[in-house]
């Protein structure tokens, strides 16, 4: 198989797609088609994409069932919140907070991953759930975070920053999935014992995936703090982890494309149901039940959208004609 460089037509396609979507959003917002309401929803969707994709890296690609994702989001949100409050309430402040959040997440992620990733299945889920709660309770009892009252912040993050972060997350995680460590993670997901027998240092790769996922959860938290005015410890309970998990399962565990689509679809379902508060949770629950009955693997299963696959499909169809 021949090596592909960075500059090939598929990457050019992707770059074009990124720019076209950005241009489209920019145009629609400037023209007023996307009003303030939809812009807020889109920003929420962007943050959810980052959360879902990063959790999918841990659950879908590596097969480690983590329920502590909200804890890492909490770290990012509070890191950004504290910096915004004490240093500078600006985009720079958010970015600085994001960086600090990433560093803390790496340290905490390593601390959590070391002992817990030796566990499997249910045990791992419960252990990570516990760690997520510990993070939250620590923040709840700190003075700099203003305890249970949470922090009231200025809105400084606008949609382009979120868009850039979403793209960055996707590029990093998709590429990680196709790198050698990523392949090792896939092997661990498929069969941990076999992977170990093949000489893969399973703990090492599991920790790698876990910490990378934690870092992006923290990034999403920082962005959240920068555009949703209020952060409180009770937003980051394990319910939040479950919400993210739902996105991952809905889109398909192991499919990054699926997570993106799930975040978008659920975001729009939510806003559509906003006027029907009575039946909102029922419809939402029903949608999930239907997905699980008709597509137990989630919307996309483990399939990914890629230009190279699309190109091959088109050309092979053209050839068979």
């Amino acid at each position: 198989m021949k090596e592909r460089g960075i500059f090939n037509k598929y990457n050019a396609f992707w770059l074009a797609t990124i720019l076209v979507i950005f241009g489209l959003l920019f145009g629609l917002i400037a023209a007023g088609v996307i009003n303030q309401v939809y812009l807020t929803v889109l920003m929420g969707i962007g943050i959810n994409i980052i959360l879902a994709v990063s959790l999918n890296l841990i659950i879908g690609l590596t097969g480690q069932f983590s329920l502590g994702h909200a804890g890492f989001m909490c770290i990012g949100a509070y890191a950004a919140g504290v910096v915004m409050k004490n240093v500078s309430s600006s985009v720079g402040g958010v970015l600085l907070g994001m960086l600090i959040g990433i560093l803390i997440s790496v340290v905490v992620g390593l601390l959590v991953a070391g002992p817990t990733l030796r566990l499997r299945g249910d045990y791992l889920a419960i252990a990570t759930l516990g760690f997520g709660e510990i993070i939250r309770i620590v923040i709840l009892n700190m003075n700099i975070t203003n305890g249970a009252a949470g922090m009231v912040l200025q809105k400084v993050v606008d949609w382009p920053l979120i868009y850039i972060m979403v793209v960055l997350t996707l590029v990093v995680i998709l590429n990680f999935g196709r790198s050698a460590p990523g392949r090792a993670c896939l092997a661990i997901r498929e069969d941990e014992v076999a992977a170990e027998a093949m000489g893969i240092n399973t703990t090492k790769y599991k920790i790698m995936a876990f910490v990378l996922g934690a870092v992006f959860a923290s990034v999403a938290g920082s962005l959240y703090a920068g555009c949703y005015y209020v952060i409180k410890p009770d937003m980051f309970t394990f319910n939040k982890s479950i919400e993210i998990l739902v996105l991952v399962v809905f889109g398909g565990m192991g499919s990054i494309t699926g997570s993106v689509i799930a975040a978008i679809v659920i975001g729009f379902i939510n806003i559509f149901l906003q006027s029907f508060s009575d039946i909102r949770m029922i419809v939402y629950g029903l949608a999930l039940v239907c997905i699980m009955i008709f597509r137990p693997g989630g919307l996309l299963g483990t399939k990914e959208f890629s230009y190279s696959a699309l190109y091959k499909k088109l050309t092979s169809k053209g050839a068979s004609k």
Partner: protein
Amino acid sequence: MKKLVIALFVFAMLAGCSSNGGGNPAGDGYKIGLHYELTGEVADYGNAELEGSKLAIKLMNQKLGEDKYESVEYDNTSSTTEAVTISTKLVQDGVIGVVGPATSGASAATYQVLDGAGIPVISPSATANNVTQKNPDDENSEVYNSVFRICFEDSYQGAAMAQFAYDTLNAKRVVIYGDSTTDYAKGLTQAFTDQFHKLGGTVVATEYYVAKDTDFNGTLTKIKDMTYDALYIPGYYNEAGLIAKQARAMGIDCPIIGGDGFDSTTLVDLAGATALNDVYFTTAYTTVGASDALQAFIDAYKAEYNKEPGMFAALAFDATNLLMEACEKAGSNNPADIQKVLVDIEFDGITGSFSFDATHTPIKSVLVVELVDGVQASAVSVSPKM
């Protein structure tokens, strides 16, 4: 498979567009935004307030003899994220003002959006200290022009109880046993301690529990051996009820005092009527010695919903009436005109008469209610000497 995805996409897009088409940002009509927690953790408060608000609008329309005011209701699902989205939606809807949200967190999340659009927001029950100010950590920070509330602050309530305990109960030494996980309880503890010290009393000890605890015997045993005149429990009825029961069972027979978190029938269910003697709590609303206006509200509420109104319904009723009264006085549906009227209004509501101070918080006295066998027996009005 792809077809399904595309179909879902199209559906989602259509759904988005169809609800977009109805929006009319121009400010015609008299729409009142009701922005409440109808589902989620604090749905009880939100639903009670929604009922109070809708009743207020209905009665006002009856009085005016036309369907002048209409409500635009949204559910913020007790989530601050959703509260932000809904605030932008209410701006889009062209409301004359917003009543809600019920809790301080969701309120803080809506203020920047609505204040930015110059739409008056009146919260019935956002009691957190300084929540009407741009930086709640700093009591001297700028006040949001368009943000008002009709409840007193946590700190005011705590101070009032300290005053009552010192003057009326003649308590010189108090033990505080509070919730360490809520902002509400922390605010109350702080304010009570400060005021009590100022008056010359002693807070013998401050102990903490964690919300959702059920066994308090360990700490209560410790408290039992101290010397004190009253036990202050800043927290909500779920734990306060159990603490009262376990304290009485242990032989702690001093007065038990608390905040408006006691104000629920669940307190009686949990503690049992016999444990609830010599119990006092601060609140904004009581049916003991109801005024004519309050009695009229209670009757109307019972007729409409077939149940007794609580504090939250009454506060929302007042908040909604306040907005409509300001609108009538301004003689305009322009939010900016209504805001100007609100700043200097003298309002006469069922939860008391008040005007706003510089932070748009009402100046009104706190009620202290005494429970006898679990039933509200008497109420006195207390103003802390600041």
